[in-house]
């Protein structure tokens, strides 16, 4: 038996697995975005019980480890009788995780829109839906871009946790190659470098957006 070394083929496998990391990130951002948006609206709703329910949801998601969300989705889905591949549990848990954080980020953005904007649009006899659609959300979305892109970096990194339930994304691919080559330092540095290549541009983009947003203000 010949021992493989970390070479071109192995790096190719890492690149291939990076696709799954990116796919999982997109699932989390789209699914978590939709759910998080609903929670953010509930968090800023006029009815107090709705606000409290949304706040509790956010507090709980932000108060438990992503790993526990993952295990609960993984075992919860199989308990409910679904024999699904790990991608479903991974996607579901990443969606729930992202929704808790995006909801809180976007709540902040919605509340950052000055109160006068609400009052002015109300005095124009706009309905609540019209207020959101034409006045509040266009402004809130602009404010939300930098922190949302920043959070995308966290999502990319946290998809690595799904390797623990056996979903073969980048981190898991690194482990598999390490098991075959026994060159952990080299393999995991390559894995880290690939994550960096994805995350660093996003971090910089978030910073750029942040600077552009504050370009008009005094600082």
């Amino acid at each position: 038996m010949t021992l493989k070394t970390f070479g071109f083929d192995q790096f190719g496998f890492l690149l291939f697995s990076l696709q799954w990391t990116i796919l999982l990130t997109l699932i989390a951002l789209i699914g978590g975005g939709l759910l998080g948006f609903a929670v953010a609206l509930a968090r800023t709703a006029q009815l107090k019980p709705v606000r409290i329910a949304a706040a509790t949801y956010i507090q709980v998601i932000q108060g438990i480890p992503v790993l526990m969300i993952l295990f609960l989705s993984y075992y919860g889905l199989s308990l409910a009788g679904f024999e699904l591949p790990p991608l479903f549990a991974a996607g579901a848990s990443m969606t729930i995780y992202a929704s808790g954080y995006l909801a809180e980020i976007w709540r902040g953005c919605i509340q950052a829109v000055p109160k006068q904007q609400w009052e002015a649009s109300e005095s124009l006899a706009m309905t609540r839906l019209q207020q959101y659609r034409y006045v509040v959300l266009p402004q809130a979305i602009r404010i939300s871009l930098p922190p949302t892109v920043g959070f995308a970096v966290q999502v990319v990194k946290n998809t690595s946790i799904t390797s623990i339930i056996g979903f073969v994304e980048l981190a898991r691919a690194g482990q598999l190659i390490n098991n075959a080559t026994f060159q952990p330092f080299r393999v995991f540095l390559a894995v880290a470098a690939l994550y960096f290549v994805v995350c660093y541009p996003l971090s910089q983009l978030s910073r750029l957006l942040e600077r552009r947003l504050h370009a008009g203000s005094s600082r």
Partner: protein
Amino acid sequence: MSYTFQFGVLAQYQDQILSGIWLTIKISVLSIILGCAAGIVLSSVRSIWGGAVRFLVDAYVEIIRNTPFLVQLFIVYFGLPGLGLRVGADTAALIGMTINLAAYSTEIIRAGIEAVHKSQIEAGEALGFTRFQIYRHVIIVPAIAKVYPALCSQFVLMMLASSICSAISTQELAASAAFIESQTYRSFEIYIAVTLIYLALALALRAALALIGMWLFGRRVARRAMTALPEVQA
């Protein structure tokens, strides 16, 4: 669905759960102390010396913040022995958490330092403060007070992320859960119970940090620390 929940089995494994909780608390508290101290030192030398030191500190911060904690743990636990440094799972967890938290603390405290107004420093000079006194009373302490809520959020996130250390066989709370699961196959009950324990730990840590904040910086800062949710660092 005809599944009956049996939380009763958990009682037999009380010892495993308690020892897991204890190790989670231990590595979290130690890494918070070490990581925060490193963050204060690194953000200070970065702003004082500038030049190559600033470049190196910034590079460290960016590298850590743009790679997953799990991969950092793998490098420490599986990679370092290849370089002749063999570390146990607990030590590797502590090293990984400290390295990770140091980078985030540096970034957060840097923002606090940069928010200190020049006029404040000039006022300190006008009062005849020495450079060290200015650094201590005008720059670093107000800077930390300003970013204390963000720091607290990061500490809580680190405590929660310590669960990932179970992947390198550190026997903390998540690993206890996995062990009990392998013995009883009562996976859902165990993970619900352990999730609730983590939630309680997060609330307790937040309350403890708020008390420390009250003692260090007064009531106003502490109240912000209690309610602040994790800020996403761009």
